[in-house]
């Protein structure tokens, strides 16, 4: 047995040579950090390293779930922000796809699509910078407009009542066009005969949209929604990190930003790793469940 395998390794040595660099990369850059997760159960000290640091069991998790770290606040913010994005950006992408589909001029359709994808290619450092300039209380155009109509200057990014609206609005701006691609593709796969016979039956445009277009893409919507729920603990680190500040922590601090501050600002490596492990562990379970549901529905999910 073993010698047969060995022989086939020799036979396919070229393939293994091709595989090796990526495999080595995975083991070093992805699996070694997984081993490093052990420090969530230890009191990590740099001089001792991961293995020799003393075990403390679930102490860091106790500390995390303790009221003093505001764990409920972080978890609530994460789920609330994800949920809002699911309603507005995810839902908005479907509405946008339906609207674009109703456009008859091909040129207008194409231009609209091309413009809508554009912000997807910008990083949150750039989008955050643009927002800082436009929302600035001293010289941003938004506050200038508010003043023009006699309103009070609003500190959008430092006001916890405004912050979430800004997060959702900028997420829509960045992602709604990109999100609509998959639905437009699904719509383009609908059999045109369905529409023709509906027209003969006297169905108007609105009727066609609700009776043909929407039901035809319901599967795709369901799959995307389930996958979205599976990643509910990813509230968007890049976005929040570039826009938040201590004045809005109450509504803006999420699991990822907390892990960043605990680890790299306060040097509490073990606590930070406990947060990441909680997030990745729960996230993994959610994705597995989501995938199971998609498969149950008779579709091929992620695998």
């Amino acid at each position, binding site marked *: 047995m073993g010698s047969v*395998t060995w022989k086939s*390794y020799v036979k396919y040595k070229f*393939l293994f040579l*091709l*595989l090796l*660099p*990526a*495999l080595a990369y*995975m083991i*070093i*850059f*992805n*699996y*070694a*950090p*997984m*081993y*490093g997760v052990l*420090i969530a159960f230890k009191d990590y000290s740099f001089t001792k390293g*991961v293995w020799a640091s003393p075990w403390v069991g679930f102490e860091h998790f106790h500390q995390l779930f303790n009221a003093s770290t505001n764990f409920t606040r972080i978890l609530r913010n994460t789920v609330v922000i994800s949920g809002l994005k699911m309603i507005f950006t995810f839902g908005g992408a479907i509405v946008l796809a339906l*609207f*674009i589909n109703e*456009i*008859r001029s091909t040129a*207008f359709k194409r*231009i*609209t699509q091309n*413009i*809508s994808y*554009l912000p997807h*290619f*910008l*990083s949150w*450092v*750039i989008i955050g*910078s*643009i927002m*800082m*300039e*436009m929302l600035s209380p001293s010289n941003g*155009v938004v506050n200038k*407009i508010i003043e*023009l109509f006699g309103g009070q200057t609003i500190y959008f990014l430092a006001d916890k009542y405004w912050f979430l609206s800004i997060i959702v609005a900028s997420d829509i*701006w960045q992602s709604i*066009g990109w999100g609509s*691609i*998959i639905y437009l593709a699904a719509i383009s796969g609908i059999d045109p005969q369905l529409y023709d016979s509906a027209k003969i039956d006297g169905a108007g445009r609105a009727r066609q949209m609700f009776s043909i277009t929407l039901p035809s893409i319901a599967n795709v919507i369901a799959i995307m929604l389930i996958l979205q729920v599976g990643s509910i603990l990813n509230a968007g680190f890049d976005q929040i990190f*570039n826009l938040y500040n201590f004045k809005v922590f109450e509504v803006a601090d999420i699991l*990822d930003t907390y892990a*960043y501050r605990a*680890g*790299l600002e306060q040097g509490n*490596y073990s606590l*930070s*790793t406990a947060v*990441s*492990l909680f997030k*990745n562990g729960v996230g*993994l379970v959610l994705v597995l469940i989501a995938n199971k549901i998609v498969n149950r529905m008779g579709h091929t999910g992620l*695998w």
Partner: protein
Amino acid sequence: MGKQRLSLFDIFNYAALTIFCLSILYPFVYLINMSLSTSAGLYSRDFALFLWPEGFTLEAYRKFLSMNYVYSGYGSTIFRTVAGTVLSLIVMSGAAYALSKKYLPHLKIYTTIFVITMFFGGGLIPSYLLMRNLGLLDNVWILVLGPMVNAFYLLIIRNFFMSIPEELEESARLDGAGDIKIFTHVIIPLSLPVIATIGLWQAVNHWNAWFDSLIYINSMDKHVISVHIRRLVIEQNAAMNDQLINSLGSVQKKDMPAPESIRAAAIMVTIIPILCVYPFIQRFFVRGVMVGAVKG
């Protein structure tokens, strides 16, 4: 069917989508015109939408480009984008080819090793400690190596390789081509569409990346440009602000730009390369979404 008249819904739809497009584009218009305005133009009016520049000067760009670390910042960004994309494509397409062969021993195990990383990771601190132990902190190669292999992209390439008929390889072998020649002269040329797509994907990721530079790099002259833009605009870093104000001179001249114009110019200089290639590359990305959606 003939031509249908525009219904009320059509009018509403065209209007709504036009407003939508304008709201996507307006921030860019605002930035461009802000970056071209002079301080005299800016401060002469209480209110402006910046649909055109208030006054005109290119001085903001000149001032930004003469700030500290701008050249080294673009140097790092360009280096990681070029080296990172090339290296990533070589390593990923090689592995994807190996994984596309059903007769590769232990294929299932190897594929699983890649797939698992799509769903679970060690997290921020374990990765940081690893980089520290590897001695890669403050080394620009960390920016190239960190995002080198992406399991999702790798599987997309593998799926494409799987769709290439085995007969093509066999006939090349009969013509006397060896393993290496088959890979470089048959498989790769046939796969250029998917390799270009993934390459563009990686290039944009590299161009936009900032977090790895922020946490792994310490030396100012090694940071990517996004980190400097972040310090200038988002953190409103005192040292950078002082430098910016000083560069304008103690007495502000009328035809000089205001600080906000220089910040707008800084943002524009990072966006412009993306805006320039965008018309040519966006269809590749759309196609990529489809490939990814068909089978992950």
